């Protein structure tokens, strides 16, 4: 189905609606609208695999926080939400929610929810949250269509819409249930870019205004807006350097920057950062440069003498650069302009994070990308991308320069961090769509000119509507027909492989909610592990309401959202020291850990353990990061103490510190009595494939409170201190 739509030009050219007696233009419009409609629906339903295979629920970790805040927003109203101080997380510090989040996603979902209510559709807010991402993915396909139309032609727009609808790089973050900022942010990102390109093309204030508001929406939704505020100035700079300065560019950029900045500063989490932090300085510099350009233009207009102008030019430009440099230097030195944040810095100097910020380096989606991930997420788009680049350079305009720059910068960043593949996806889809569309159009028009040699006048139909410059073919070449057919077959084969790949990947790889785990049994049947929710509901129903739960930060959001209990740290990693304290507790001996836990008023400790089921992303495998993060703040924790010859082991050869630290004890408590696999000794850890080294674990200050049915989550109660006599 997707393959058919991925190449609408062929459909256009071979169908004829003579019986309906529509004019050619009307036929084309009808086809275009219906194809777009189908793509819109396809983008939505392809993302419903997760609901079909599991159930309608929120996925992963961060979405649980978003869900919790949305629930709060719909129940208490906007002002309560804006001023919310959350005492249930980051105990004992708490967190000011309104000032430390990007509210765009929650507000969007709440608006949809209120609209549905107003229309008398009584849905639960959870369903709205689950389906927000697919809905916005559908909208993205529309934007992609208009963007493609803007930079190339309608054909490319349609192909781009079809490609992005099922591209795994985008689906990975927008399946039903992944209620995360990126779900709406990619839509906002593409919309901003589209409106800006349109503004540069037309020079109209209204489009520039539109892009400023698009930017505002993006800022309200995701921290990735920094990419926009750096890419746009870079683009303007390139246009200036290559001598493409124009009044249109001046209007578009100034309006977008000034208005966008003012609007962005209304988001509390961004606030004055927008004029103070180093990440935003490029935009301001280019803004000033634009004024210099405009001024020079004006002076040139006033002065008729060219020699005088040359002298003037030299003086102005040199002094402008000097003043700018001094201002930047003074600003940075006086602390008025803050230096770059770690995440941003690690993009420019990729080895930075690994050496300096373990908390960024520890997250799996911040790892550098191997070629197989690109292949997995883009498939044939990677082959088409260079061809698309070539086509863009063949027909250079302000719009194609933009898309090329967007594609290249985002591809570079995608190489640095796996998660940024998402940002590159729209660009890759658009550029590949240009390649597909231009190729197919060339070939089909070639075929048709052959068929209709007598009636040459009528060939200017649907296929070659706008880009007459593309048809560079001579008339009399008998070979071309065969060659064209062969190439066409090749292209269609590729596109159908793409459709197959995307469907499979969506269904098998990207639809897992990761809070419910699925595995294949020995007979090919599906086994579901629902241990996480079992544990969280246990917490909710069996512990006092003011109980504090300590766990590694990955599970913080889920515990607060589903277990409704206070946590020490959660996935918002704003306070490194606090996380390091938990890391230190987990990697200390039990009595030392007990002191730390007492000081934090911890009542329960929760660990995730995959030794019984073979679930590999459990706390033991994350343990080295706890040591690293803990050791980064408390030098008493040293990584080599937990390693044997640089190797991380849990069996008999493990280091004594490892075998007796809190995390090891909590994970493997009473595990030594258990037979996990036939033919193996007791205490055989299936996740790491070894027999554990310490089977006789005695707990002194903690006691087992609850272990879920597959042992994935284990909860321990911290005993109160013993009475002193």
């Amino acid at each position: 189905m997707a393959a058919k739509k991925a190449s609408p030009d062929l459909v256009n050219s071979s169908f004829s609606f003579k019986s309906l007696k529509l004019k050619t233009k009307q036929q084309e419009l009808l086809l275009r609208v219906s194809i777009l409609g189908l793509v819109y629906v396809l983008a939505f339903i392809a993302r419903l695999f997760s609901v079909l295979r599991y159930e309608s629920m929120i996925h992963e970790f961060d979405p649980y926080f978003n869900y919790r805040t949305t629930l709060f927003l719909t129940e208490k109203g906007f002002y309560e939400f804006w001023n919310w101080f959350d005492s249930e997380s980051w105990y004992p510090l708490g967190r000011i929610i309104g000032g430390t989040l990007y509210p765009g996603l929650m507000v969007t979902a709440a608006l949809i929810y209120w609209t549905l209510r107003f229309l008398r559709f009584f849905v639960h807010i959870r369903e709205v949250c689950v389906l927000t991402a697919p809905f916005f993915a559908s909208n993205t396909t529309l934007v992609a269509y208009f963007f493609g139309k803007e930079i190339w032609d309608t054909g490319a727009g349609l192909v781009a819409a079809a490609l992005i609808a099922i591209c795994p790089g985008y689906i990975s973050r927008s399946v039903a249930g992944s209620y995360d900022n990126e779900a709406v942010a990619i839509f906002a990102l593409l919309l901003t870019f589209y409106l800006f390109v349109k503004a540069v093309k037309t020079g109209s204030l209204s489009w520039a205004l539109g892009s400023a508001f698009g930017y505002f929406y993006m800022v309200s939704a995701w921290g990735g807006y920094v990419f926009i505020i750096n890419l746009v100035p870079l683009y303007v700079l390139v246009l200036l350097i290559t001598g493409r300065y124009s009044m249109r560019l001046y209007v578009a950029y100034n309006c977008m920057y000034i208005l966008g900045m003012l609007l962005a500063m209304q988001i509390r989490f961004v606030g004055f950062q927008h004029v103070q932090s180093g990440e935003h300085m490029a935009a301001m510099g280019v803004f000033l440069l634009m004024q210099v350009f405009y001024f020079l233009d004006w002076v040139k207009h006033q002065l008729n003498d060219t020699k005088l102008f040359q002298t003037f030019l030299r003086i102005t430009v040199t002094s402008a650069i000097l003043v700018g440099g001094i201002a930047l230097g003074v600003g940075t030195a006086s602390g008025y302009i803050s230096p770059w944040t770690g995440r941003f810095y690690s993009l420019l100097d990729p080895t930075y994070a690994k050496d300096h910020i373990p908390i960024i380096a520890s997250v799996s989606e911040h790892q550098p990308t191997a070629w197989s991930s690109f292949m997995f997420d883009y498939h044939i788009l990677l082959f088409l991308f260079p061809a698309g680049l070539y086509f863009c350079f063949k027909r250079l305009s302000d719009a194609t320069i933009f898309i090329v720059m967007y594609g290249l910068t985002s591809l570079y960043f995608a190489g640095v961090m796996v998660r940024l593949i998402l940002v590159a996806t729209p660009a890759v889809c658009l550029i590949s769509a240009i390649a597909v569309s231009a190729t197919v159009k060339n070939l089909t028009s070639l075929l048709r000119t052959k068929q209709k040699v007598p009636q040459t006048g009528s060939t200017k139909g649907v296929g070659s509507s706008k880009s007459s410059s593309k048809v560079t073919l001579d008339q009399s070449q008998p070979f071309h027909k065969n060659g064209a057919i062969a190439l066409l077959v090749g292209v269609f084969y590729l596109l159908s492989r793409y459709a197959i790949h995307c469907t499979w990947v969506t269904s098998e790889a990207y639809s897992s909610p990761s809070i419910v785990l699925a595995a294949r049994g020995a007979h090919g049947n599906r086994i579901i592990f629902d241990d996480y929710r079992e544990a969280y509901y246990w917490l909710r129903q069996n512990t006092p309401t003011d109980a504090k739960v300590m766990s590694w930060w990955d599970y913080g959001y889920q515990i607060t959202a589903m277990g409704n209990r206070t946590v020490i740290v959660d996935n918002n990693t704003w306070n490194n020291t606090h996380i390091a304290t938990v890391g230190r507790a987990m990697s200390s001996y039990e009595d030392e850990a007990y002191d730390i836990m007492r000081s934090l008023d911890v009542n329960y400790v929760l660990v995730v353990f995959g030794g019984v089921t073979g679930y590999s992303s459990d706390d033991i495998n994350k343990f080295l990061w706890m040591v690293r993060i803990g050791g980064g703040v408390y030098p008493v924790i040293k990584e080599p103490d937990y390693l044997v010859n640089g190797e991380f082991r849990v069996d008999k050869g493990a280091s004594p510190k490892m075998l007796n630290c809190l995390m090891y004890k909590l994970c493997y408590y009473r595990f030594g009595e258990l037979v996990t696999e036939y033919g193996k000794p007791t205490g055989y850890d299936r996740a790491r494939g070894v027999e554990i080294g310490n089977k006789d674990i005695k707990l002194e200050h903690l006691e087992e409170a609850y272990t879920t049915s597959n042992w994935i989550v284990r909860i321990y109660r911290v005993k109160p201190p013993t009475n002193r006599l």
Partner: protein
Amino acid sequence: MAIDKKLLSLLLLVSSLSSIASASFSDPDSDSDLTNELASLRSNSESGVIHLDDHGISKFLISSPTPRPYSILVFFDATQLHSKTELRLQELRREFGLVSATFLANNNGSDLNKLFFCEIEFSRSQSSFQRFGVNALPHIRLVTASTAKLSDESGQMDQSDFARLAESMAEFVEQRTKLTVGPIQRPPFLSKAQISVIVAMIVIATPFVIKRILRGETLLHDHRLWLSGAIFIYFFSVAGTMHNIIRKMPMFLQDRNDPNKLVFFYQGSGMQLGAEGFAVGFLYTVVGLLLAFVTNVLVRVRNLNVQRLVMLVALVVSSWAVKQVVYLDNWKTGYGIHPYWPSSWQ
């Protein structure tokens, strides 16, 4: 714990008292001579690391009476092993020099002559290596003032103590000798003179560059340059080069089972070897460029036979490349991607 500490401090007190006592009994002149000689050797050597040979070892460490007025930190070096990069000898030697230079910069007065940094080289002082009982490198040993036997291994620096290079070495020294080394002062990447020259050059060049830009006659106005740059960035990204740089992946590995065989492709997603990424990136680029070439350049060629031939070659090469990449991807990730047919068809 507390008892341990008290015991330790008591021992220290006793030992220092005894050392003072013995120092007063031993010949003070010869001691200060040795110290002065070491200090003068140090002032003549680069970053304060004294190069000792067998003679120096026997003079300063063996023949001198045991409560010496100084400690010596010895770095064991071997030029013949410099080619083995996994030992990191040269890097560690540089870091050792840094610690020494920092110690010199941060101490003056009496503490300065309590610790000397020395190195001995294997080919020229083999007997010293035997005396120290060193048979594996890298090896750094602290010979404290009271160490009587050189083969006493208690002063050996652990693997973990130079894991974090100069910083952890300094910690080790501070712990053992109770002297302060201070924060490590690394030389800046570019010296001040270099920076000022670069800045001056940029300032001078700016007006000329701007003039050329305004005239529109720079390389920047050449489409081909931009195009090749763009293709290069594309190739650079999709080949996973950033992965290779960040993870410091080698180009290929040696097969564990058969040392003569080289492994170019690593099975398992999320990891890759250098050559593997480049090979695949090359295949991507070739197919894309062939497509552009066939649809844009080939159609202008007049000769039919040439056209046919090139077209055929392009088709065969592209389909082979696509097949190869898809096959490799399936092999690497272990996924079997298949279409979903309606169940009634099966």
